[in-house]
């Protein structure tokens, strides 16, 4: 009985923190249902000094992406981080690159053939959505902040109660 009472006491004292932790765990592990069916997308990606057009590609997990890769001025390359795909393209000759997006997140693609002075900055992004790690991180941080604020708020109330109780003649 005493144990149970202690537990309830602890719950009352740290309930906010506890629920915060539980919510945090849920946020980090809750399986996000697939909202869209995987599909095949065809994208034209043009490389020129010193940019990719488009510089950001949004797709969903499981999508099959066929990239028609072209170059406008000099020879460029395409290297996709995390997938290890590498291609080079000559102006005038279209190269086809196929990607099956098995992993969510943001992956950079960069020019893999030295193409001039600003070549190292020729970078684009492939965003495979829903970007789970990103949204989970946002949710987790929000939950933590709300929990902390709530805890601060409630614990202040408790300590105030304690002081009143402590000074009372009872």
């Amino acid at each position: 009985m005493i144990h149970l009472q202690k537990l309830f006491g602890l719950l009352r004292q740290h309930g906010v923190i506890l629920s915060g932790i539980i919510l945090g765990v849920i946020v980090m592990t809750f399986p996000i249902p697939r909202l869209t069916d995987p599909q095949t997308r065809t994208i034209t990606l043009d490389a020129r000094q010193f940019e990719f057009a488009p510089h950001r590609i949004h797709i969903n997990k499981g999508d099959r992406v066929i990239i028609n890769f072209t170059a406008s001025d000099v020879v460029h390359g395409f290297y996709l981080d995390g997938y290890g795909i590498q291609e080079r393209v000559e102006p005038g000759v279209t190269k086809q690159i196929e990607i099956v997006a098995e992993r969510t997140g943001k992956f950079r693609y960069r020019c893999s053939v030295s193409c001039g002075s600003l070549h190292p900055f020729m970078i684009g992004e492939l965003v495979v959505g829903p970007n789970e790690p990103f949204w989970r991180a946002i949710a987790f941080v929000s939950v933590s902040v709300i929990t902390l604020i709530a805890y601060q708020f409630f614990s202040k109330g408790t300590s105030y109660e304690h002081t009143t109780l402590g000074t009372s003649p009872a």
Partner: protein
Amino acid sequence: MKRELLAIGIVVLILFGLPVGAFIYQRQQTSSDSTKRVIIIQATVPEAGGFQPSAIKVNAGETVTLRFSSMDVTHGIAIGPGLGIDLGHVDPGHVKEVTVTFDKAGTYTFYCNTWCSPDHWRMRGIVEVTDPDNPDAIPIAYHDPIIERLVAEGVNIDANVTMGMADHPQPDVLTFDQPPSIEKGNILAATLSIPEELSDAEWRLTHTPMEGLELLADKNPSNSMNDLIHVIAYLWVSDTRFEAIQWAENYFNQNCAACHGQTGDGNGPAANQTAESPVAFGDAAYMFGMRSDVLYAKIRRGGMGTDMPNFGTLLTPEETLKLVSYLWQLAFLAPNSGIE
């Protein structure tokens, strides 16, 4: 004391051994064989100087190693005509070399075969091979029977009009809504009586498909013009060899596609930089008024004032004809098939 000496020894070895080693390595790289000459050629975009050096003198029979490196962007290196040397891409920081023995006196051209700048087509260099016994000999002017015949006939190679169309009025019923189909032509050809001239490759070289169509229509009045178009398309690509097409496709993609487009749509990435918009070989209507020998001459001589460079100094006549046969493929096969 011993340790100190050892330390000094190591320092001396690093300070002197490293540079000396590097020099020895470099000497070995450049002159491992004293009889063999190594020529270092640096490639930059034409705006920044092109090839340096851009002219090389070699004695006939001499073996030289040409070592190419790129200073800015990726270039492609090929040497012609008739040598069949294609080193492929030379990326900045990489070196590619070729060892050649130039047997005959004459002039060869090394050129960039990857679009590298708006002035890419100016990027050429010359290898002058002189006969050591007779160094002052001037090479005899090269005779090109096909071009000479065109000139004798009075055909204006630079004229920007499609031939055959004017002297042979286009029948009203002729439409090119659907690209000519080789398969259909092949099937139809067996059922028709084909005029003798049309089976003659030499005749087809010097006449337009339009002229061929008229001959065919005269012999087969019962067939519609649109059916006969397929037969003409079939005949014009009938004796093309697969190896020739493979070679020509690769050459076209490297040297022509940047302006004329990979599929011959005349809309390559550099198409908007030329003085005149590039010709679309994929346009069957245009090609029906075009002659093989005129295409040949345009490739070899270049187009005056159009920014079409000359390929006569890069290709042999046989190679040029292969390229022409590929242009007919583009006209009648693309985009609905076979060729990618």
